[in-house]
């Protein structure tokens, strides 16, 4: 079998695995977030938290809880890093300096996992497991909870009650993220991912050299960092590191993990609004965009365009032999189509166009399928904009799932869409205005610009991957990228919750002959079109300066 054929089969197997999980996982998550009865262990948690599970919150209350929880998370994670030197299991590492600690605390709380540090040289076991990995769980749970609230907004009638944040957070963590992560972690250990409390093992190689072999609680973190679309590597080399992703099949498992929840949530959405076909339509939009993007990345990498790839005769710089080019390309596309940002190969060395598609994936707002929860709410906002545009075409008040998309709703949706481009483009522009920031670009010419563009696309969309040659650990970039991550996460969340509030208040309007059906191929095509056109109009000029100029030299 040729490398390309094997790659195509790999992608087909991945699609089959995801399709097989769509119903069972989507239905399971539906039951987790709708179950009336509170289990004993849940009640125990609520008592410890001091939450009243019976009271539901309106959107303002829910938003307040989300923000309070995230603010506390940032503060505690910052503190852990700063005092790491005096904590047990610090592995002898000193406290992290303030700018980097702030950047990292924001990064993990916002589900971004941008890493301006190298894991094996900065963070001890305690900060990794009890700090960073905890945020891998809870920031993912926050994302899913917010998506569920938006869906409740569509599903509920004439109410301001949208659920209880503490209940959603607890249940999603305990019953969705924990069990899947546990099983996945064991599977990864079986492949060779490590899970131990050894500091370092010193090996004397057959040629008499010394090699210091690292230890750590890697497998557990590897599972949740991908399942929760977080992406922060235990090691600098992330999932290219043999201790994180040892074999060709763990590579398959990891890609599956990072796609499975985002691709199954449309099913949960369909169940919650009582029309499974609506879920299929949203999943179809995500699937179409994802498939085109994956084909482009794998295609560009396999063609190996560009001077160095042609000299090498393959785009192998920054890629592992065991994975090969196509499987690395799928990983790269999947990690940027979701908000994951873990990598099994280094994007900076990708072909100009291959790397350009990765940047574009993030610019799409990570909706195909997007981060856990964030992908679904992003896609539902785009669907809302689509019914509005369709409504303009025929001159009717647009409605989606029985809810009128009026002035308030469309304002919130538009603001949601504008947040990340505003952050991304003004971040890049402001950075370029300061000459000292040019030193952070490793490569000369347009590729250096692509590195900076990638950094802001990644931070604003909470992805976390990087063109790794970019020197991001400077006061300016730690601060600017930190702000992009913060606003790129929480402004959209507030807008989505507000949208949910305003939708839930409405009484549904009955569907008539004039209602635009939102489960048919026409609608699917229109959402794809709206997504691509909006994003292309926003970002084409800046892409022309970076990856396009780089590839067309």
């Amino acid at each position: 079998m040729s490398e390309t054929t094997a790659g195509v089969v790999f992608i087909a197997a991945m699609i089959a695995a995801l399709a097989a999980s769509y119903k069972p996982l989507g239905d399971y998550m539906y039951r987790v977030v709708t179950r009336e009865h509170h289990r004993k262990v849940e009640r125990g948690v609520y008592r410890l938290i001091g939450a009243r599970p019976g009271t539901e919150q309106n959107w303002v209350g829910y938003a307040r809880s989300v923000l309070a929880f995230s603010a506390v998370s940032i503060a505690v994670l910052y503190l852990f890093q700063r005092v790491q030197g005096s904590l047990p299991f610090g592995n002898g590492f000193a406290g992290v300096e303030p700018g980097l600690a702030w950047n990292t605390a924001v990064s993990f709380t916002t589900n971004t996992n941008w890493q301006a540090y190298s894991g094996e040289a900065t963070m001890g076991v305690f900060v990794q497991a009890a700090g960073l990995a905890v945020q891998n769980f809870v920031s993912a749970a926050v994302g899913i909870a917010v998506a569920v609230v938006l869906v409740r907004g569509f599903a509920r009638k004439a109410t301001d009650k949208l659920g209880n944040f503490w209940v959603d957070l607890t249940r999603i963590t305990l019953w969705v993220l924990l069990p899947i992560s546990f099983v996945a972690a064991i599977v990864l250990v079986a492949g060779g991912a490590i899970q131990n409390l050894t500091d370092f093992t010193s090996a004397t190689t057959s040629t008499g050299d010394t090699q210091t072999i690292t230890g750590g609680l890697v497998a557990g973190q590897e599972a949740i960092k991908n399942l929760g679309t977080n992406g922060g590597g235990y090691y600098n080399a992330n999932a290219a590191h043999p201790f994180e992703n040892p074999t060709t099949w763990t590579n398959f498992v990891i890609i599956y993990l990072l796609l499975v929840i985002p691709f199954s949530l449309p099913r949960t959405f369909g169940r919650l609004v009582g029309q499974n076909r609506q879920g299929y339509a949203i999943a179809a939009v995500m699937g179409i965009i994802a498939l085109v993007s994956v084909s482009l990345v794998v295609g560009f990498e396999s063609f190996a365009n560009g001077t160095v790839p042609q000299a090498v005769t393959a785009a192998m710089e920054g890629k592992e032999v065991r994975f090969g080019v196509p499987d690395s390309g799928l990983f790269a596309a999947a990690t940027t189509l979701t908000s994951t940002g873990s990598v099994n190969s280094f994007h900076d060395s990708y072909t100009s166009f291959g790397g350009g598609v990765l940047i574009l994936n993030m610019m799409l707002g990570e909706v195909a399928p997007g981060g856990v929860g964030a992908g679904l709410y992003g896609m539902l906002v785009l669907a809302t904009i689509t019914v509005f545009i369709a409504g303009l075409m025929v001159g009717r008040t647009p409605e989606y799932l029985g809810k009128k998309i009026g002035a308030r709703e469309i304002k919130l949706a538009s603001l949601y869409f504008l947040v990340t481009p505003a952050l991304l483009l003004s971040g890049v522009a402001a950075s370029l205005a300061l000459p000292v920031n040019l030193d952070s670009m490793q490569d000369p010419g347009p590729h250096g610009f692509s590195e900076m563009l990638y950094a802001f696309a990644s931070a604003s969309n909470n992805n976390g991957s990087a063109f790794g040659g970019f020197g991001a650990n400077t006061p300016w970039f730690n601060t600017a990228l930190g702000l992009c991550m913060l606003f790129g996460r929480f402004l959209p969340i507030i807008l989505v919750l507000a949208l949910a509030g305003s939708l839930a208040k409405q009484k549904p309007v009955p569907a008539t002959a004039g209602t635009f059906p939102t489960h048919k191929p026409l609608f699917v095509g229109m959402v794809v079109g709206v997504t691509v056109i909006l994003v292309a109009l926003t970002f084409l000029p800046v892409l022309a300066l970076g990856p396009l100029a780089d590839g067309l030299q």
Partner: protein
Amino acid sequence: MARLPRWISQHLAALRALLVLTAVTGILYPLAVLAAAQLPGLNDRADGSLVYAEDGAVVGSSLLGQSFTDDEGEALLAYFQSRPSMAAGEAGDYDPLVSGASNLGPENVVDVLPDPGLGWDGDENAAKSLLTQVCERSFAVGEREGVDGSRPYCADSGESAVGAVLGVFYSEGTTGEVVRAVSLNEACGAVEAPFIAEYEGVQVECAEYGEDYAKALITPVEGGSGEPAVPADAVTASGSGLDPHISPEYADLQVERIAAERGADAGAIESLVEEHTTGRFLGFMGEPAVNVVELNLALDEAYPLA
């Protein structure tokens, strides 16, 4: 207790929630995975797939690549060579404390030449482009294995190969007649003559240290060479810097040298390589790969060095 203001009670609830979830996901969860990983069959892997010598000393991990070079970084000819590594720490390449990649881009083709007084090793600002690194490695491997090391876009007119890249000046900036051409990676003094004498009728100059060629159009020259004899993985660094594998093609290329160095039969070495080659899992996952660490250990066992 008096009622606290709402914003304080909110944050207290949040703090309590975080602490509870930290206990569950940050402490219980990793320890549960750790406990499960102690099961027989899993524990060796959870500990890092360590490989032991007969006396019980750790000689490495079968998952982490190693470099088989001497103190100067020169290849030890009796061992299969690993891929180039960017994980260069205090202990040399393949240092797990500094895993990582070059992160150099696909159009990184122009060297920053060193001050001639200081040389490559002495001048901190000097940097070899990715293209030049690829060309250097290719010719070095070619020489070591007795095959042609040439590849597209590589020039070997100097002491070591460099990227074949011209800086071309045009009469109208980026268009018009060629008025000047400089071989950007070949420093005057380091080469007798640039890799091509003429470009579009203009004589090609060598590159002068310190001169600004920013206005020139960077023009890589492909040159005429067929399919390179040195495989792709032998001239590129992996993403982790710890890749334990090489391609079967690169292993095959090394068989004859190993056989000669060890006084063994090439066929026997070949079958040893095959034993340490993993195919695609289920026939379609990943690429066939040869584990260099395990292969070299098996080599030492079967054909010990005197």
